[in-house]
């Protein structure tokens, strides 16, 4: 514990800053399906008994090394044509849609009805823009950190037909939906769930939306109607201006080879639908954002302070080594550490210099110690 301290003036020696850090997060489709085990029973995919969503890990989830990447789910609004008592897990799919909607978009109308997701930035429930059936990709906070950086999100999905595991399952095209037209200051709509932007493709139209702070992307069911996909099996809920035709073989459940998206939404469980979407994800990429709030302490060492040391090696036979027995030689010390203390002399933070810094009466030092929170 030191003997001598120097006071830090809260008005002149302390500053606060805010910095945004961004990391590139690339997710390849091979991690999502096919790398660990045999699809659809990949060891990095965790299904739950409640069946409401599916978790994707970057490694077999039973391993302590596994990191949670995102959750997948599917849902539709109760006004969707897919909604009906005959649909598998109908209630849970509606619940999933409603839960997402109420958290991210809130309620509307005198009856407090949850809003519908829309493929534009105007929440007017225009029939041509509402997304009544959505696939949900709910990213882990481990990846998104504080938020997804606006304008950085893109997702590439296979839009071709499914030929079954033996034949290799996807042929045909891919659609890349991104929020490239969005910037930090424009191209988003702020809602109760944060800002969202539209995911679109110049060739395939609008594919969904992404909520930046929540870290959740929604793909509309019609996102899989890529230009190169088979031209059969339409579903009713297509976006305005987008292709109206869906790939025929969206998914095979092993019983019937070909299922359309429409059949998937009604005839498959949520986990089954997630499996189908999972194998169609080619790439996901975005930049996350970490907001770092920093306090900078300016540690000022005047010329007449901290020039001597109580380090035991400072003396040799009672004589200060660096003085070499001459009174006129200046005292010298070498700083390697800065300790920051409270009024009770408790060490609250410590900073290390990468190399020793010479201190003597001819110089004054100001070390800028930044603590990030």
């Amino acid at each position: 514990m030191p003997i001598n301290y120097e006071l830090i003036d809260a008005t002149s020696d302390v500053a606060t800053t805010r910095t945004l850090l961004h990391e590139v997060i690339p997710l390849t489709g091979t991690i999502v399906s096919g790398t660990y085990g045999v699809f659809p029973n990949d060891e990095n995919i965790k299904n739950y008994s409640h069946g409401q969503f599916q978790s994707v890990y970057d490694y077999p989830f039973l391993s302590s090394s596994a990191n949670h990447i995102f959750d997948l789910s599917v849902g539709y609004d109760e006004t969707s044509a897919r909604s009906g008592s005959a649909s598998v897990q109908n209630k849970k799919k509606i619940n999933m849609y409603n839960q997402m909607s109420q958290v991210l978009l809130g309620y509307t109308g005198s009856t407090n009805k949850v809003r519908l997701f829309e493929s534009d930035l105007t929440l007017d429930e225009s029939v041509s823009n509402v997304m009544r059936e959505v696939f949900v990709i709910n990213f882990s906070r481990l990846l998104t950190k504080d938020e997804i950086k606006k304008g950085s999100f893109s997702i590439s999905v296979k839009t071709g037909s499914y030929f079954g595991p033996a034949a290799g399952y996807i042929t045909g095209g891919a659609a890349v939906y991104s929020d490239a037209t969005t910037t930090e200051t424009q191209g988003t709509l702020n809602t109760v769930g944060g800002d969202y932007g539209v995911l679109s493709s110049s060739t395939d139209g609008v594919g969904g939306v992404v909520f930046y702070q929540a870290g959740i992307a929604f793909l509309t069911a019609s996102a899989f109607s890529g230009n190169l996909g088979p031209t059969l099996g339409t579903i009713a809920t297509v976006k305005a201006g987008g292709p109206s035709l869906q790939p025929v073989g969206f998914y095979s459940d092993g019983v019937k080879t070909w299922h359309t998206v429409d059949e998937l939404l009604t005839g498959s469980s949520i986990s089954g639908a997630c499996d189908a979407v999972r194998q169609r994800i080619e790439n996901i990429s975005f930049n996350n954002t970490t907001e770092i709030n920093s306090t900078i302490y300016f540690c000022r060492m005047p010329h007449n302070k901290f020039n001597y040391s109580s380090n035991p090696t400072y003396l040799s036979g009672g004589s200060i080594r660096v003085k070499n027995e001459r009174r006129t030689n200046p005292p010298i010390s070498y700083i390697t550490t800065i300790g920051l203390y409270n009024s009770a002399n408790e060490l609250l933070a410590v900073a290390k210099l990468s190399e020793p810094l010479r201190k003597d009466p001819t110089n004054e030092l100001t070390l800028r110690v930044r603590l990030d929170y």
Partner: protein
Amino acid sequence: MGFLDNSGDIILDAVLTDTGRKRMAEGGFSIVKFSPGDDEIDYSLYNANHPSGSAYYDLEILQSPVMEAATKRASAIKYGLLSISRTDLVYMPSLRTNQKISDGLNKLGNVFHLAVNRATYENISGLVDEKYILEPNTNTPSKSLVIESGIDTTQRTATLENRTAMLSETGLLDSLYEFRFDSRFLAGLNSLQAGKFANLADGTRDISLNAFSSRPSVGAGDFIEDYSSAIANSIPNLVAKRDGDTTGNDLSEFTGPRGTMTAATLIPSVEINAEGSASPSFYTLYGKTGLTEAQLGFGSGGTLYDTIDTTVYVRGLTTGAQLQIPLRLVRKQG
């Protein structure tokens, strides 16, 4: 802890300590002061006779690798830099245990010994000279740990004039000493409150160390886990070169000017001071049991002992000079 990359620009690697995080969780995080340290520096690398000139004197020091900041106690600054406005100091005081005066405890086998209870003290003091065994928990000790400060040099005579010039006038007299000890084994400290430590012109001693009192201790966990500290007063160390052949060297450990001194005895904790044949668990956990007199250097009898080795740290609160005292806590079995 790794070393910091020192191949490029100077960087500062800053972290919150465990105490800092705790205070933040409690809502009491407030940094109000700082202090620089130089724990990694070995000043013996300073070569004032480097043949290539003064630019090379501290070359090796400036190349010293510095370890990453740690969040636990290892990050604590052990010594620290001193703010002394004078720039013409050539000498600084250090600390020593005085084993020359009859009041001082002496090492036996390179360690000091403290009897943890009365039965042990009476037993050992009957086997070896009293100067080798410290009586526990008393304000009237026959022997005590005597700590001196002074300048360890033969280049300056230990006159009172030099004491004034080199220590008093330069503000290098330690008026208080901090004792830091393992609170698991030692409950506290009795230290000297007043007295006299001097010699007379004819060379005889003028020493009176008999006013001891208990000192309160506080936790010093940021120094070493489980450690406590207590502050001891000092008295002037006026052993000096006087008339004729009187140098004071027979009474003081220093040959240069002497500064202040203190003396202390220690209080064993209740976890280790029990009398009887059964060894308290601390001896099994932290020490040794069933040692013979021969093993401990007490003689050749058949009595068995339990021991715990620990270190007491003493620091002058003005100069920062430090001293480590190796201490063996001894308990007689039976």
